[in-house]
């Protein structure tokens, strides 16, 4: 059984992004490339590797892993890979500038990021996405897009336009609390919120539905918090080193 799902649009999309990025930075320097390419590689793997098959048919916890990467890991990597000069040039265009000014407002970006995460776990919506492919693709896109918007004030390419330290910490802490609450609810809550996982084609690794849902909740809870915590730690470290540089 081939568990890999080489969806052509995904492969093509990642390839185009990769080649496009390469063309862009070829002349100006590859120093941010590792971030972007890592993000891209993770994106590809996230959507074509067995994670995808497991997520769609077998395990709720695998689906959590997939969304987790889409919303919390891949966007910051991609953002860190965008060179500053590119962002500045792009944002000189009036439409993009206005877009960035509205969506980049911390309350907006926070609500979009956290709201999307919470909304898609409402059973009606989650189950609908599992049932309809087009909705599922839309779901994944929203995670990527709102994830990127969420992380923009924290790791956006223009360092001077990022949120100051205390605001960043509160921003990330607030999101961490929401993520934890959702994760805790899924861990302790009633089983069978997402009926598709009650009877998978095969029971893998001895995970019954209760353990599976618990595991999913806990992956969201603890590793999720770890991502936000890493963001907090790196924000504080940057705050200290910027003082040294300014001195």
């Amino acid at each position, binding site marked *: 059984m081939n568990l890999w799902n080489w969806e052509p649009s995904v492969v093509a999309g990642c390839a185009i992004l990769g080649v496009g990025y390469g063309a862009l930075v070829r002349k100006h320097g590859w120093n941010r490339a590792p971030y972007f390419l890592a993000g891209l590689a993770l994106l590809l793997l996230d959507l074509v590797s067995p994670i995808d098959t497991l997520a769609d048919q077998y395990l709720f916890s695998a689906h959590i892993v997939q969304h987790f990467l889409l919303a919390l890991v891949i966007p910051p990597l991609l953002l860190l890979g965008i060179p500053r000069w590119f962002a500045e040039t792009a944002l000189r265009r009036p439409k993009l500038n206005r877009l960035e000014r509205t969506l980049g407002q911390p309350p907006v970006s926070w609500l979009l990021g956290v709201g999307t995460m919470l909304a898609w776990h409402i059973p009606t919506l989650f189950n609908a996405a599992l049932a309809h492919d087009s909705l599922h693709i839309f779901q994944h896109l929203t995670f990527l897009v709102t994830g990127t918007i969420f992380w923009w004030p924290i790791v956006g390419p223009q360092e001077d336009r990022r949120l100051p330290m205390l605001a960043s*910490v509160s921003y990330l*802490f607030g999101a*961490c609390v929401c993520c*934890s609450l959702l994760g805790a609810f899924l*861990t302790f809550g009633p089983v069978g919120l997402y009926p598709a996982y009650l009877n998978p084609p095969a029971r893998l690794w001895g995970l019954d539905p209760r*353990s599976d849902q*618990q*595991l999913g909740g*806990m*992956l969201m*809870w*603890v590793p999720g*918090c*770890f991502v936000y*915590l890493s963001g*907090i*730690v790196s924000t*504080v*470290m940057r*705050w*200290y*080193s910027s*003082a*040294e*540089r300014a*001195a």
Partner: protein
Amino acid sequence: MTSWLCAIDHKRIGILYMLSALLFFLAGGMEAMVMRAQLAAPNLKLITPEIYNQMFTMHGTTMIFLVAMPVLTGFGVYLVPLMIGANEMALPRLGALSFWLQFFGGILLYFSFATGAAPSAGWFSYAPLSEKAFSPGVGLDYWALALLMIAAGSIGSAINLIATIATERAPGMTMRLVPLFVWMTLVTSIMIVFALPALAASLVMLLSDRMLQARFFDPSQGGAPLLWQHYFWIFGHPEVYIVVLPAFGMISEIIPVFSRKPIFGYPFVATSTVAIAFLSYGVWVHHMFAVALGRNFLAVFAAASMLIAVPTGMKIFSWIATMWGGSIRFTTAMLFAVAFLLEFTVGGLSGVAFATVPVDWQMTDTYFVVAHIHYVLLGGTVFALLAGVHYWFPKFSGRMLDEKLGRWSFWLIVLGFNTAFFVQHFLGLLGMTRRVYTYPNLPWFGALNLISTIGAAILVFGILLFCANIAMSLFFGSVAGDDPWNAWTLEWAASSPPALQNFAHPPEVRSRRPLWDRKHPETADWMRV
């Protein structure tokens, strides 16, 4: 006398906290000695089991809530305004109220002895033992009410410290330039704001069960004892960092001065403190590994618990790196600081051992845990406090502590402490459970317990010597100047003891070591990057 009772000057409040803590420390120490006497040999019957239960309950409650937290608050309240170049705390009357709430909470707790039954369900009072049905006496009611008062006082002083650090810093002292003791105190205070309310909520529910016929924790009526454990440890785990972070701050001030080197990696020490603060709210379940919560659940918390050792370890490396290549001066303060590094590391390692679930399943509620908590709390917090007292006593009193007496007390305390508690690791591994009032004559149990009791006696003697040193030096100690240690932070610019108005003019601050800059204008910190 009335001037002390009505004091709102932060220095007086600080001293009041320290004296109160000392009083309760002696009480808690007596409770410990009663226990150690009872455990000196198998099958002793010096006290009844009921009295023994009261002893360990009161000992734990006293040491955590009436000694460790208040004394660290006291040092914070005394030193923070001085270190940031301020003349007073932001909310002085709140500061006074907070002290008296804590003090009267302690009196209320100890009043329970007079009613015939002090609380006896352990310092974390698990349900359903804490319910009226199983603890019918009034002891636990006193315990809960007293702790509510103490918690309120703690939150009050935390608010005061946060407001002070946020608003009263001398011009030029940005948040990135504050002394590490101040930074740690700030982080600790924020943690108190987020953790102590969990204790308050738990206590309110317990009192509701006991007095108002609620049924939160009583399983026979549909309640959940586990809820108490969750809520208590959601408070309890951050709490243990609350009692250790300010101690880390003290060490971060003392080691550099007696190594004649600035602290190594200030940003790492400061950032790792933030990491510890956040992480500490995500590991509480490791106190509950043995209550059948489900393996996946335990695995996740085990991983998080191991993770939290990393930022703490970073600090240890930082302190050692500070000493490396420095010109070390082994004053008594420095001796305690170095001992702290060793003892706390031992305690930290035994803690990480507990993060491994199967190990925890064997070791929890044995003397291995007792050894762990005393290595981190006594070897950690108390040793750091002893270092702090020896370091800052000249500032508080204008007199130097006697170095010879200091050395004697140091060696006796180190000998006594390690003798008393190192063997408890083995007792735990051999299977001796905690909170037992006696034990059968199993191989090694008697011998190791006797060694532990003897160690405790030596420790007590060392502590008494330390107290004698303080008493003597207050009257006969040599006069300290403003800056006996040639240190670098702003408290040493004030007189010893400081005048009511700490600083006549706001001091000039351009780096993390303002006094170094003042004394060495050619090689000031702010000149180099």
